[in-house]
């Protein structure tokens, strides 16, 4: 008995120290120059402190010396995977301020382009999610299909990533004559390719073991932290602006807001997978019904907004993107503030990842679908 006591005392005296590691600014799973200061005890995460500022480009300040049509060009460079939606947000904000009604043709094309870029963004997210979990083949499956969308973008507006297609007053150019044919061909093809994604990753027993029941975010916490987008919808927070504050042609289509009330890593994964199906539904409803008409309204050479404050938000692939313009009636804005979805989503990481393992931290971070220039404008 005494011997047992001795053993117990010695095991009590064995103490493990917590230690800090820097994940980033250069690290394969932060997908950019994000630095996470992680406090670990063995493999278990005790505290995560995100540090941003490594890629700060001062876009908000730069806009103060630019005219309104020029602002859109910078928003491409923030969340480069939702470039079109960011352009659209600025365009809608300026149009609302000037009380311009754009033709239906513009609304339809903007909606289709929005959904195409949502698809492209979710595809890349899926690639990277697989890679973060160690399944390297996913990357090439996703990029293969994303290539088709980028080809459509290139044909439409000349750019593949920073599309710069929506401008205040309408679109930069009209769509290419092949646009409808190509989009329909892509949808038909991708409907057969998306089940492959499920076969490769979603149904894999290792993947489900690693994601189900890991990294919970409750609905209350999601609302409290200002989480939006698929990350919040996986926690049951109905926040899809396309449904609740429809803009462009979203009021003309039927689609489901994908919701889950589980809130774990797997739910966040599934919500995005289902959103890809919904995006394809939306595009299919619109693509054959693009009305004839002008692709832009005639704008004045120098766009001047009336004095006041204007806010417009859109649903990007990552969540709610907001543009807040304070105008003093001149051709440049007085102040512009962008509300980026990634910023609010990122700062829940300490709340979610605490108590899980390093591998879970990587998986959780992956389901936020972070784009660092979006966080660090």
């Amino acid at each position, binding site marked *: 008995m005494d011997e047992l006591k001795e053993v117990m005392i010695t095991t009590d005296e064995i103490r493990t120290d917590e230690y800090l590691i820097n994940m980033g600014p250069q690290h*394969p799973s932060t997908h950019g120059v994000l630095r996470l200061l992680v406090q670990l005890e063995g493999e278990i995460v005790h505290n995560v402190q995100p540090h941003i500022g490594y890629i700060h480009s001062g876009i908000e300040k730069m806009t103060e010396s630019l005219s309104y049509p020029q602002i859109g060009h910078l928003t491409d460079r923030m969340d480069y995977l939702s470039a079109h939606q960011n352009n659209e947000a600025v365009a809608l904000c300026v149009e609302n301020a000037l009380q311009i009604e754009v033709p239906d043709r513009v609304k339809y094309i903007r909606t289709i382009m929005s959904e195409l870029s949502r698809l492209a963004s979710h595809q890349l997210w899926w690639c990277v999610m697989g*890679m973060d979990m*160690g*399944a390297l083949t996913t990357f090439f499956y996703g990029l293969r299909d994303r290539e088709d969308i980028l080809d459509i973008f290139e044909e439409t507006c000349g750019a593949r990533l920073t599309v710069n297609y929506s401008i205040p007053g309408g679109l930069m150019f009209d769509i290419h004559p092949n646009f409808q044919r190509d989009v329909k061909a892509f949808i038909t093809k991708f409907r057969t390719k998306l089940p492959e994604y499920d076969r490769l990753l979603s149904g894999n027993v*290792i993947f489900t073991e*690693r994601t189900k029941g890991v990294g919970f975010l409750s609905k209350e916490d999601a609302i409290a932290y200002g989480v939006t987008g698929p990350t919040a919808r996986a926690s049951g927070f109905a926040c899809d602006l396309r449904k609740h504050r429809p803009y462009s042609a979203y009021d003309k289509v039927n689609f489901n807001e994908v919701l889950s009330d589980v809130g774990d890593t797997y739910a966040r994964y599934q919500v995005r997978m289902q959103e890809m199906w919904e995006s394809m539904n939306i595009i299919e409803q619109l693509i054959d019904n693009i009305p004839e008409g002008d692709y832009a309204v005639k704008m004045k050479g120098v766009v001047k907004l009336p004095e006041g404050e204007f806010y417009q938000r859109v649903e990007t692939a990552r969540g709610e993107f907001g543009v807040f313009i304070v105008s003093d009636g001149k051709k440049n804005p007085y102040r512009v503030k962008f509300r980026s979805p990634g910023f609010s989503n990122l700062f829940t990481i300490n709340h979610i990842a605490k108590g899980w393992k*390093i*591998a879970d931290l*990587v998986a959780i971070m992956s389901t936020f679908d972070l784009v660092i220039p979006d966080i660090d404008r």
Partner: protein
Amino acid sequence: MAFNIYDFTTLTKSIHEGLSSQLSPTATLAIEWTIVGLAYLLFVALFGLFLVYAERKVCAAFQQRMGPMRVGPWGLLQTIADFIKLLMKELITPRDADKFLYNLAPFIVIIVSFLVISVIPFAPGLSTFDFDIGIFFVTAVSSVGVIGILLAGWSSNNKYSLIGAMRSGAQIVSYELSVGLSLITMIILAETMQISGIVEGQREMWFIFKGHIPAVIAFLVFIIAGTAETNRGPFDLAEAESELTAGFHTEYSGIKFAFFFLAEYINLFIVAAMATTVFLGGWMPLHFGDFEGFNQIMDLIPGLFWFFFKVLGVIFLMMWFKWTFPRLRVDQILNLEWKYLLPINLFNILLMAAVVLFGLHF
């Protein structure tokens, strides 16, 4: 010099007789050792390069790519170019590293791999050591490799390396049990631990067929545990790129990194070769009981081809795992071993013992 592709003993015997007729026994032995050593070095270097190339092409096929295509025809010279690049790179030693252990670690890893390879019979008459405890030697020596990995992680003085090394230590020590126990299962059937005896015992029928259910279970367990032993995906936690950048070899560069890299591929070969030798008949051709014509045609294919055909098949299977599955988490990897593979293995040994005792095998 008599050369017979079906039986290499004629070749080795003629070399031995030729040398000993000219030289003293000591000099003969020295020259023979040198030839054998050089042959192994050459084989490991060439086969290692080939496996790297094969892995790239296999993974490219899974990922709908071409793989290397530019250097040489079909990119055949790509791995050689990479190897030359690795040779010429600067060897970096971190300032606060434990320099002696840091430099020692890659050698431990590679020496262990060379030691294990020495007992594998490639073809009739083409094996170096043939102990009566061959299987025991393999399991004993291969477990020394983990010391190299642990030392590499510890001496690098890098937290990522340390986490990777600790993961690797926990993983390899655990999975050694499964490798050992599944080999023991087959030893019960083979009734010998001598590797040449095990191969000889499969002349009529490979052990995976002879031992039917318990042998198939042991084979599956061996492949899973063997993949874990080699630190390859889905068990590549030790280097887990997305979590630990490169795990235990984060700080290594140039030829020292190449040693770890080469050792990984030699270990891949070793696991495949052990699976071939113990379960799939080694260099023995495929025989079906009474089909005399079929058996004679199979006998025409030399043992060396049979061996490499089977080894490459198993290697392809393990590459398939790596390029399809996501990585496991560290607690799951230990759960899999201690809660599933180990009990299955222990039960399987009893099953095999019963099968052998009551003569239920073919």
